[in-house]
């Protein structure tokens, strides 16, 4: 019984210890930063905000637990987020990132008709991929290819630069993965995105 009683805090410690790994890549802050940039790029096309999180959704994640365990967990939760908070800011306001964002914003106006027609979509790698070249007129197909090449070059620079600007070039892959998720989440109605190895339309 005593062993079982001691087991809960140890398990909680183990679980929260897993969370502390995220200190090295502040996923939540990165996601928020990515969302800011993505919305900014897409805003000229944006007609709807993402639906707010329903209270019921939060409820479904609550679990019933031993009050002592909850209290212990809360103490750890108080401590650990502070440690995270110290390094959780993601800086996206450097001249470099601004220049890339400006370049992407300018291009979005030209890309938007191709997103809407389904010629291109957000792929699972945080880039733009040609989904159906036939959805573009013959004379526009090379323009489309140029826009995609330029956009992907900018996106690659953006992910690299965010990692570098925050002092962790090794985060580039994590930044890219975060953006890949956020581009899909923020995709405007009618846009296509890759999921589960295939294309889906929002």
């Amino acid at each position: 019984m005593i062993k079982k009683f001691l087991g809960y805090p140890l398990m909680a410690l183990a679980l929260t210890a897993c969370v502390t790994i995220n200190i090295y890549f502040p996923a939540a802050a990165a996601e928020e930063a990515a969302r800011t940039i993505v919305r900014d790029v897409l805003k000229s096309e944006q007609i709807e905000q993402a639906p707010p999180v329903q209270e019921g959704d939060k409820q479904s994640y609550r679990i019933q637990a031993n009050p002592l365990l909850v209290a212990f967990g809360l103490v750890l939760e108080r401590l650990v987020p502070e440690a995270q908070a110290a390094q959780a800011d993601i800086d996206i306001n450097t001249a470099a990132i601004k220049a890339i964002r400006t370049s992407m914003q300018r291009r979005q106006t030209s890309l938007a008709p191709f997103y809407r027609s389904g010629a291109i979509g957000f792929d699972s790698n945080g880039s733009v991929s040609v989904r159906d070249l036939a959805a573009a007129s013959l004379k526009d197909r090379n323009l489309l290819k140029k826009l995609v090449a330029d956009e992907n070059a900018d996106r690659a620079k953006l992910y690299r630069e965010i990692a570098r600007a925050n002092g962790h070039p090794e985060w580039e892959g994590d930044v890219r993965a975060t953006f890949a998720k956020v581009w899909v989440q923020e995709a405007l109605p009618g846009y296509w995105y890759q999921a589960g190895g295939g294309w889906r339309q929002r």
Partner: protein
Amino acid sequence: MVSRRWLSLLAFVAPGVFSAVVGAAIEITVAVDDIQGEDWRLSSIALRLRSASAGFAGLVAEVDELVLPQGRGTLRSIQLECDDLRNEAQGWRCEAGRLHAAESPAGAQETPWQGSFTRDGRWLIDIAQLKVARGAVALKLSGEQNDWSADLRVHRLAVTPLSQLSEAIDLPTAWGIKGWASGVLEMHGDPSGPTGINAELVVDQLNFSSPDGRHAAENATVKLLAKTRMRGGAWFFDTNLTWPKGAMYAEPVFVDAGLGTIKVNAKGFWGSQSEVLQFDSWSIQLPQTVALSGTGRLRGDAKAIDDLTIVARSDQGARLYETLLQPFLIGSAADDLEVQGSVGLVVHFDAKGIEQAGLELSELVLADRQGRYSIGTTDGSVAWDRDKSVPVSRLSVQDASVYQIPTGSFSIEARFSGDGIRLEKPVVVPVSGGEIRLDNFELVGALMAGERPRWKADASVRGVSLEQLTTALDWPPFAGSLEGTLRDTRYADQLFSVGGGLQVDAFDGSILVQNLEIRDPLGSVPVLTADAEFRRLSLLALTQTFSFGRIEGRLDGQIDDIRLFAWQPDSFKMHLYTPQDDDLKHRISQRAVENLTEIGNGISAGLSTTFLRIFDEFRYDRIDLKVLLQGDVAELDGLARADGGYYLVKGAGLPRIDVIGRNRSVAWKDLVERLQRIQVEQARIQ
């Protein structure tokens, strides 16, 4: 080929019934159950021949079912009739026959026919109107001893169903090919097969799109005129294809016939035994774009190039670039150009790839639409050889520009061979009153497929006017000149680097730029990194240039870890200070004090509201300014003070003025705005 099996069946004639004689009339009936080959079959065959008078007969041949070879479909209830079969002096003739099939791969058929068979072995069958692929076909077959010929006239056949009827028309089924074919196909041959084919065909309203969109046509009209003959085991051809209307896309090339009829000609032969496809001549004319011609020899099933010569000529550089060059340059710094002028090109391929090339340029002008660079009016010729030495190539360029910095005219003399370019003599490019001299230049990997282009060079800069240079860049005009040696300058993997230092003689002192690197210099967001060192700059010259207010004295300093992104400052570590051994007078004007105060604190010192306004200038001991820029925030500092502030200017004498900074952290945007507020006269700081 007819198999032996059905011949034996024909001889067997299982339930054969024939012959009845009524007075002078003769009627013969033959019935056969089946005749079949390896992959075809005739079922329930009945042949009736009736003759009421000498020289005239009626013929009815009926077949219940004909299964075509190679799975091409089935014909059912076939009737071939001729009520007026005449036996003339030369042989039998039918003037008004009728052919009927209730069902065929091309639908039900009902057509008149004519035919004849002469005693000397000549025969003719003329079927006037078959319904095929939603269109009409007239077929005339004739023979004489061992020779035969077929004359096929087609009118508006739908291309897609047509392809299902003939193995020869092998179209990708998923491409949704639509169009209408009309014209004449004439074939002649002997028992061994065809010996000549002439075609005059038009495919109209041609539309298709491959599933991946990489190949497509819209409303195209294509006319083919071809003459072929079999001679000595080879097919000789002379073909002429014109394309007067519509557009096609074959990744990455898009061609629209809107500018005029596109013409393609080819003459040569195909040796089926030797597997050689020889073009004695070929040409492609894209109106108002380019004319291509040449010869060629391809070999094997894969049609690998054995020998190919391409001669191209274009007086329409813009259309040549847009149609045939830009699609292959997408993603490079040359994919968004405006082009004018004339280009001539000769390229020779052998089995290893490009062997020789010659390029002739006449009044060629290139300008990047994003304003990054331009090359004006270029004339000359370039010769290149993969293996051998070549004559010196000469190019003359009237003017050029890089990021708005214009150059004067210059010429290039170089040898282009193997995988690189080597200068024959230095290239001297006039820039802003001075010159950049390119002493050595080696480009490797740009001229061979599959290589990474990279170059290295040694260059020097002499007497480049900073005033002209800064004006061209829309910066505050600097006085002085740019001098320096750029040793071991390299470009590889989109990284431009300068091994040596670049010295700028400016403001009566010098600025030494070192560790200069530019990543992706012609990309959308170039990244520049460098270190700079200032030695004994005259503050008098500097402040006069920027109309900052007057300061006398010298200035030393350095800017380390400069990083510009898209030419905008992203980070640097700057320290400017009065050198210890400065022997000049140290004086600072009231206006300069005001401006320095504003830089440090964001507000003016307000000297003009105090008694100090009666003094035009003050003495100072030292100037010291440190700026650490990281992203959006600049950290300011100067000479340390005990009270936590820092001196930007430490005064001397009486009346003594100290400019003391209190703010250590300032938004870079605010600092730039402070500098912009200080703009006076024509100077502007950005």
